[in-house]
């Protein structure tokens, strides 16, 4: 059944290259539903029993003389549930987003093919093969943005990640001479440590953990929105899938641990996660370009997942996976909403936007819900995941990480309000704007759906996770449908919801007691100055956090790109030195030949 899906994906990708964009969108939409069907069918007939499919019913692909083993496992099922729904939604969204068909749908289908491949691959070669497929198909989507920084940084970082993973894989292959993932258990010592470390760094590049995140702001802010929604929502989760696979499912943690016992290595991952959450949030607050702001906020939120994996206790991992699930959806909503705003007004800068709430009510509502989930307001599922992470940090008494995580959480309020106020509220300077086309709104609200389900039943999400965790040998934490119980405290989401409804009654009574009259925008208090006299500029959102910027900027100044710039220049002067060897005179070359001859003879005869 899987090979049919793979074949259809490739065929569809080729077809959509040549078809008009509306038709291409429809084809892409239906084809991208197929992997989801595979998921549901797997869930239905195997049920949630933990069956680790043996090698025999793996699906085999013969490629250039090599066989690839593919099969659905509980872990990949959970991550697939998080990533694959994004594709049909993005196809639906971009039905009316693109004016002409320049290969967007085809490349998205290729990325879907590669993502599905990564999730299903059961041996290191196919994992690496699909991982590379993913990086070049997404590179071609980045390539459409025609921006030098985005193209170069994305390709270089992807290839660096690929080589890191390849380095790890060949060591593992060499140690126990079998490429199957399930055989990595019996590796240890220095080689094992180097292998696992390089694989984790490889995956960390795509998971946008702080020191390796330099490519993200360029790419997120230059490519077209539907792709960036997938990039930040889905692709980063693949990075975390890899980390989870190698750290927990395949006991990478123990390999790291028993090599250097005194240092707890996964704590390092937590520290990097905390740094990336903290600094990315602070930088996000000071951004004026909407897409850059969303990019840094995405890096910040992903930092939480890294912290969860870093802490490593079952509680932390559950929190991290829950956060990954939420992040996939609310970040996709935010980027798609930014796309709608740009589609309608053609502007990116927050200072140029403003007052779109009344003109685009549905977009505003979807963004509002996503922002609430992002800022972890208690009535949303975002809070449940962050709460689990906080609990885990306190349980492990990580004194350095816990405050940074909490401050990053509070920082999330600041930039989320900057988006709301700057783009949707305040003075409306775009009168001609009307609501986004139907397909885009539908896409947004489909994405809002899963967030709502887990608002009321966080416990349900932990049931979804149970098979994945058990497969990795981590027992799930106690939870009922509504409440999550940990050794430190209990979080009962339904209690919060009901009390909020009840507490809403007095507010509603006050609201309804007196009639109120809605006035226009002009009737604002401007120290008595009548608005229509000389129409003062009323949008307070440009350079919104000026005092904070004045205080924070000196500390945030040398960004990550500064260091990568230095490396780039280093290579540049080395290559200049090398180029000087080719002087361009034939006699030099002739001398080189003779010298080479003497060198070889000397080497052979005397040594």
């Amino acid at each position, binding site marked *: 059944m899987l090979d049919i899906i793979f074949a259809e994906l490739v065929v569809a990708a080729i077809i959509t290259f040549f078809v008009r964009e509306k038709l291409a969108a429809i084809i892409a939409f239906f084809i991208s539903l197929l992997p989801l069907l595979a998921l549901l069918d797997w869930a239905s007939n195997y049920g949630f029993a933990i069956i680790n499919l043996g090698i025999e019913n793996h699906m085999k692909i013969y490629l250039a003389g090599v066989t690839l083993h593919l099969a659905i496992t509980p872990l990949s099922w959970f991550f697939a549930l998080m990533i694959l729904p994004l594709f049909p939604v993005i196809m639906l969204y971009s039905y009316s987003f693109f004016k002409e068909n320049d290969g967007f749908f085809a490349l998205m289908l290729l990325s879907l093919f590669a993502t599905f491949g990564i999730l299903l691959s059961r041996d290191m070669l196919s994992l690496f093969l699909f991982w590379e497929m993913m990086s070049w198909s997404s590179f071609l989507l980045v390539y459409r943005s025609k921006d030098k920084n985005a193209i170069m940084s994305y390709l270089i970082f992807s290839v660096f990640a690929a080589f890191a993973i390849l380095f790890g894989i060949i060591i593992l292959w060499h140690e126990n001479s079998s490429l199957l993932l399930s055989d990595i258990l019996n590796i240890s010592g220095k080689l094992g440590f180097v292998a696992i470390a390089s694989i984790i760094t490889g995956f960390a590049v795509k998971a946008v953990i702080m020191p390796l995140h330099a490519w993200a702001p360029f790419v997120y802010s230059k490519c077209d929105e539907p792709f960036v929604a997938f990039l930040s929502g889905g692709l980063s989760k693949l990075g975390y899938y890899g980390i989870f696979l190698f750290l927990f499912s395949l006991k990478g943690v123990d390999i790291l641990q028993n090599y250097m016992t005194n240092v707890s290595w996964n704590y390092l991952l937590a520290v990097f996660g905390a740094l990336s959450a903290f600094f990315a949030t602070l930088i996000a607050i000071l951004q004026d370009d909407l897409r850059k702001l969303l990019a840094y906020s995405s890096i910040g939120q992903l930092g939480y997942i890294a912290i969860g994996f870093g802490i490593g206790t079952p509680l932390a991992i559950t929190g991290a996976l829950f956060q990954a699930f939420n992040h996939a959806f609310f970040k996709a909503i935010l980027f798609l909403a930014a796309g709608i705003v740009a589609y309608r007004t053609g502007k990116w800068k927050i200072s140029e936007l403003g007052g779109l709430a009344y003109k685009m009510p549905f977009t505003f509502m979807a963004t509002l819900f996503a922002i609430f989930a992002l800022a972890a*307001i*208690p009535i949303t599922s975002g809070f449940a995941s962050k709460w689990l992470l906080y609990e885990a940090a306190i349980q492990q008494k990580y004194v350095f990480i816990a405050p940074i995580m909490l401050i990053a959480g509070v920082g999330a309020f600041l930039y989320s309000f900057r988006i709301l106020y700057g783009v949707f509220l305040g003075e409306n300077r775009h009168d001609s704007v009307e609501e986004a086309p139907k397909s885009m709104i539908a896409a947004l609200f489909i994405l809002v759906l899963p967030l709502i389900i887990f608002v009321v039943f966080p416990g349900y999400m932990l049931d979804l996770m149970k098979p994945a965790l058990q497969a990795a040998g981590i027992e799930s934490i106690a939870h009922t449908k509504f409440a999550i119980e940990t050794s*430190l405290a*209990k979080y009962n989401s339904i209690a919060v919801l009901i009390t909020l409804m009840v507490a809403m009654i007095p507010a509603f009574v006050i609201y309804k007691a007196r009639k*109120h009259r809605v006035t226009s925008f002009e009737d604002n208090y401007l120290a008595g100055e009548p608005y229509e006299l000389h129409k003062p500029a009323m949008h*307070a959102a440009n350079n919104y956090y000026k005092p904070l910027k004045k205080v924070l900027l000196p500390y945030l100044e040398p960004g990550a790109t500064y260091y990568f710039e230095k490396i780039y220049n280093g290579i540049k002067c080395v290559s200049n030195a090398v180029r000087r060897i080719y002087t361009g005179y034939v006699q030099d070359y002739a001398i080189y030949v003779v010298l080479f001859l003497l060198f070889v003879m000397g080497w052979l005869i005397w040594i």
Partner: protein
Amino acid sequence: MDMIGIAIKITILIAYAIIGTCTGLLFMGIGRKIVARVHNRVGPPFYQNFIDVAKLLSKKTNISHGWIFDLALLFSISGILLTLLFLPIGGVQLLSTDGDAFLVLYLLAIPSLGFALGAGASGNPNAGVGVMRALVMMLSYELPFVITLIALMIYYDTTSLATIVRMQSINGIKSWAITMPPFMIAAFAADMALQGMLMEQPFDIPVAPHEIASGPMVEFGGKYLGSLMLYKAIALVAETTLFVDLFLGGGVVAHGNFAFVINFIVWLALIFLLFALSILIAASFPRFRIEQAFGFYWKYEAIIAAISLIWVYIMVIK
């Protein structure tokens, strides 16, 4: 829980909601009296705030700026009532067994986010700038407060407020957190953060009447301003109760059958003391600029809180 139990619980919740509001308004009135006395003035009667709220709610015309503006009213009162009910008040655990300190910390954010939306929807630039200052203030005072919170949690190895109160009230005042030296420092830092949370004078930058025409509240009038006053009152009670629960054992002194009454009185007294302290600080300090406030919290307060955190960490590890 059977029907009767639920019914009792609901009545207790409603009772405490009303008590919270009334004490809040009462304290604000008394607070204005204290400030007046500091200014060597007669000052308004202590029930002045009740009158103000009654007047605001009885305004004939109320001007609003659309449905997002009304969100402010709905979110503010419901959000802060929710926070109040998740705090153990005077030893009585209302709903605090279902949630914990992080939940309360984030619940405090619902009303302020509702206000921010309402102020933003009004379109007045003063409101926008006011909300920006409120959020920067929040970011600044959260750091010391969060560090002290974590210090407490690590020491008592729990995050739920109910258990913290229980562990602090084992043998009365001696077991209060503030009696232990590291927590004295933490209490000082948390009290400064409390000053910011209550938006009292040195840190009432977001609602500065002279610079930005009372910040976010520029377009609020009539019932909207009334709901704001109610929110301010309940918030006062909630935030001070949070401080009391964390450091002063939630006011739980006695454990007998009449313990309920004694604890309630002790809780009231503690809250009033805290509020009076912050009012006195307010009466004697000019308003800070926003960068100064941010610097104050993130440099000095954070260091103090960090010292207490490390001290507690060492104690806990040993």
